């Protein structure tokens, strides 16, 4: 019942953020995995379901304009719950960047990672309240 990875990918299939909690993968394997998953998910049409099985992962994905948010989970995890979690994450990013777009994420890679870290740790959901998740990020912004 864990989240194995979180990926943000654009419409062209370029990875924008990648975060793994499954440490069994080496860097090369990760790259290969991303390519395979992206190829699978991006070709799907809207009316197909948001869950794709790949290797021993289930990938739950959601598309927001030109950005795809993907989460790899194991068989025990609640797929619908993860779908909701992705939405929650997008709302949080949206609140932070006010209308988040691909460029925001690209140029603020570290902040994006920070926000995701506040929401997901060790493959589990930590925080789903937007304000709570953003407080540490806000404080940091003030310091630097």
């Amino acid at each position, binding site marked *: *019942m864990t989240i194995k990875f979180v990926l943000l990918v654009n419409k062209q299939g370029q*990875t*924008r*953020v*990648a*975060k793994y*909690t499954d*440490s069994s993968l*080496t*860097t090369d394997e990760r*790259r290969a995995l991303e390519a395979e998953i992206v190829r699978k998910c991006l070709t*799907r049409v809207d*009316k*197909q*379901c*948001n*869950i*794709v*099985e790949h290797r021993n992962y289930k990938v739950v994905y959601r598309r927001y304009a030109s950005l795809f948010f993907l989460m790899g989970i194991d068989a025990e995890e*609640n*797929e*619908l*719950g993860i*779908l*909701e*979690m992705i939405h*929650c994450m997008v709302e949080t990013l949206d609140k932070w960047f006010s209308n988040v777009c691909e460029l925001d994420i*690209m*140029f603020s*890679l*570290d902040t994006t*990672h*920070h926000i995701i*870290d506040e929401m997901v*740790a*060790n493959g*589990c*959901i*930590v*925080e*789903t*309240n937007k*304000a*709570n998740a953003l407080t*540490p990020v806000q*404080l*940091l912004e003030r*310091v*630097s």
Partner: protein
Amino acid sequence: MTLRLRDLIKQVRQCKTAAEERDVIAKESAALRQAFKEQDGTYRHRNVAKLMYIHMLGYPTHFGQMETLKLIASAGFPEKRVGYLGLMILLDERQEVLMLVTNSLKNDLNSRNQYTVGLALCALGNICSAEMARDLAPEVERLLLSANPYLRKKAALCASRVLRKVPDMLESFMEKAPSLLEDRSHSVLLAGVQLMLDICAQQPAVAEAYRIHVPLLCKILRSLLMGGFVPDYDVGGINDPFLQVAILRLLRVLGRGSADASDAMNDVLAQVATNIDSSRNAGNAILYECVQTIMAIESIGGLRVLAVNILGRFLGNKDNNIRYVALNTLARIVGVDAQAVQRHRATVVECVKDADISIRRRALELVYALVNEGNIRTLTRELLDYLDVCDAEFKPDLANKICMLVQRYAPDKRWYIDSLLQVLVQAGAYVKDDACRALILLVVNAAQLHGYAVRTAFRTLAAHFDTAQPSLLMVATWCLGEYGDLLVGPESGKVLEGEEPVSASEADVLGLLEAVLQRPTTSPACREYVLTALAKLTTRFPSSAESIKGMIAAYRQSSQLEVQTRSVEYSRLLAFPAIGPQVLEHIPPVEESAYDASLEPSEAASAAAAQAASSASAAADLAALLGLDAGLGGLDAAPAPVAGVPAAPPAAAPSQAAAVNALSDLLAGDLLGGGGGGAAPAAAAAAADPLAGLFGAPAAPPPVPPAAGPTITAFQKGPLTVTFRLAKGATPADTDILASLSNSGAAPLEAFTLQAAVPKQMQLKLDPASAAVVPPGSTGAVTQRLHVHNTMHGQKALVMRLRISYSLGGQSVLEQGEVANFPPGF
């Protein structure tokens, strides 16, 4: 001077080709290396941020690992944060650098700034290794009881990682985890529930102790359900669905196998199942979890009915995600309550045809679980219909599933033959060989269906000749060859009930086979099958024997060795009218167990060895067969007198019949095994175990073909002999060596190791030995593989130095030796 992160990203974005991007990255990486070498502290965090970006693009970044450690050790929060981010992203727990960070983590965990502690907990939770977990567990344990909810939640998740790495620390965390359930903060509650779930997964016995918390969990769940609007954790009108899902999951673990605990939660589960608003995704997520819990615990019947009804509603939902999870859940509960799932069979079968592959896969799994003797006919028809229209990527799965279902549940043999032939027609390319073999085996053993099988095979092959895949060709040609006489003779009129009569003449059958032979796309293996079928038909169609001989002889010059071999061998065989009919007789029924055994290579080999040793008749077979084989070989070489056969070894006369049987075994073995293997091992296997050989000869070759390559004695001293069997690898420069160790002494050689060294122009790969003990009096019982790649192959010959150590009767022995007697060419 290195670029700013923003500029680097811009540059990368402007790249038009991958090569350009590589250049930019290479240049920047070089600049970064330089900066790291100069110990430039001011831009360090910017540089590590760039590394993270480079890493995300998939380029190597190992050179910056030490920099992240330096950042973590620095005092400023922004630097620390980038450092920890780098740690989580650039490193993984296998890297030894990680050891160096333990101390900084310890300092940060004891920091007074909650965000510094939070960072450290987050990093530890994501990457900690077993050693770190052991060192830092006391800090995590302390933080679990911290007054600050921000730290409590992070510590709880960190703790579950620590426990996963070091399970023996379970004791101390086990008692603290439930105290988190008293917390008022939702996120701490969530983390606490997740920690308890993790502990129960690690140590299922703990669930017993945690059952006393069921009432509390139910209370929390009820308050989430019934409480008013709480804006903080509201998702579309549902109060913290994530926490509800987690609690339901914990209830599932606690209620499983305990009637009391299940009783305590029945009410609240019923409340969830009836009260949750199913118009939203969040609500469905909870219902989905709730249904799984109800089906897993010892719940009352009424509750189960409620759950199954919810699943029914899910299946009928238009949203594909919901249907997916419904199928997923049905697949999970089919073992618990098959009846409930059977009720939805029609819907599930519909889902196999869904446009979405995720749903199709799930549905197919489920159909597979749903099939039984009662519904196999209808379900297989549905699946076959679908096999025709489904997309290519799905066909292999579906075809194999159908084959397995038919094999398992077929109500009668005729239906079995029909269904499998149908699969072969529609998706022959994806059907595994053993399904074809099983089909042929079934036909052989069903004496009353021989005629039916050959008529069906003829009809099918004639109708689908243009599209027939090798698997169909093989099965059909085999049937035609074996039972061709039943197709054209007086037998052909005896059709079964509901079967169309076939009118075929000998010429039709031969024409069809010839068409297969001449089709340019026919594979060599298929041609081999056809040639064998033709050889058999010489006795079945006596009037056409001459023209058949001509067809076989036409391939004497085939460029495909196996095809040529068969053509030549059969031509010779047919030159002896005295033995032909006996050799080519119908195959007798085969014991399925013997056939199955032959599919297990190792078992078959040992069984064959045992049988060869114990059974005198098998030995006679062997002698007779080899004799016959040698006789034929002799005939091939020179047009010797017919006496070739009787002149074969002493056993020939009394065991004439045995020899004939053995040869027919050989033919059948080749025939059914697809003829992949060489004739010699096939003959040996067939002879050693006639029954196993009948079907499995090439499928079960002896583990190592005896004639693999030259053998040299590499080392001999005392009781130990090391022999090398050499074989060329993928290229002439590669040599595969199989070292066999023999012990002629009376005591075992224990703790045996063999090491080897080669000159520097060669590369050596050494596999571990198959055992560490060389038993006394053994020859080749222990083996070890070596692979040598000689980069100067042809200029420098192979040499090798060996270093061998073992202990003999408690005394350790160390030997060294040089191997320079590799044969030329290696």
